[in-house]
């Protein structure tokens, strides 16, 4: 399992495509209405949007991923780091931010490789 983290627009998916030779067909891009991840794709990107969907439904995204870890062992997982701003006023945004933190910690713990992208440059964290 590979986990790639970084701020928005930092080149996470571009890095994944190049390093792991992914094609468009390999990538499942989560949207805000993504309630279930497509486990047949090698790469799942936009996990923060999946997390937002789960939080809106009153569920814990880390738990949802925990149940699917077996199927994600060979996956490239990508999430935007949303942890570095001011504590949001909106309770939903607060819950989202914290749920993403738990999700990211879980994925970084389980992954064999963890990368962080900064201005297009990769930094290996694990």
């Amino acid at each position, binding site marked *: 399992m590979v986990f790639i983290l*970084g*701020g*928005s*627009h*930092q*080149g996470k998916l571009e890095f994944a495509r190049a390093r792991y030779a992914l094609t468009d067909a390999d990538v499942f891009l989560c949207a805000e209405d993504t309630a279930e991840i497509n486990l047949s794709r090698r790469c799942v990107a936009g996990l923060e949007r999946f997390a937002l969907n789960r939080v809106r439904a009153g569920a814990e995204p880390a738990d949802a991923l925990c149940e699917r870890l077996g199927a994600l062992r060979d996956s490239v997982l990508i999430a*935007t*780091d*949303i*942890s*570095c*701003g*001011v504590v*949001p006023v909106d309770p939903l*945004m*607060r819950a*989202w*931010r914290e749920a*993403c933190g738990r999700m990211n910690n879980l994925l970084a713990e389980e992954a064999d490789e963890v990368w962080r992208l*900064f*201005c*297009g*440059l990769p*930094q290996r964290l694990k």
Partner: protein
Amino acid sequence: MSTFISGGAKNGKSFYAQRIAKAAGTPLYYVATMIPHDAEDDARVLRHRAERAGWGFETLECGRDILSCLERADAGGSFLLDSVTALLSNEMFAPDGIHADAHLRLADELETFVRRAPNTVLVSDFIYSDAALYDDLTEAYRAALAHVDRRLARCCDNVLEVVAGRVVVHKGVLPL
């Protein structure tokens, strides 16, 4: 040697940028990119000038058309450009309206700037990691700044992230 610096607000980016620029030689230029709009901006400019006093910078005011300031300076000198963020904002949200593709020209211009004035330090702001869903215009600005940042990260010799006054070297070295 060219250096690109980013990081969160008030983490010490400008302090490192000033030290790196000063160590790179003379003449020493500070490219001031903010266009003051109100009394709060005026006060900020005065505060920044006071902070730079004694460092030996000559200030070049240049809020738009960044290459024009090289006509008023010795390109062999040391330049501190603070900040890419303000420059993009000035170019994108201009008096004659919104320029949605301003980042493409700005990235080209800044690459040219660094080529002509190789001893340049550029400072940007890392505005990409907060928990918020932005309106389309704000999101377009974030994507545009990230485009410029990434182009600069590719062309500069050194890429530094400043976190709580500490430096993470993502490319090259800390030139101090």
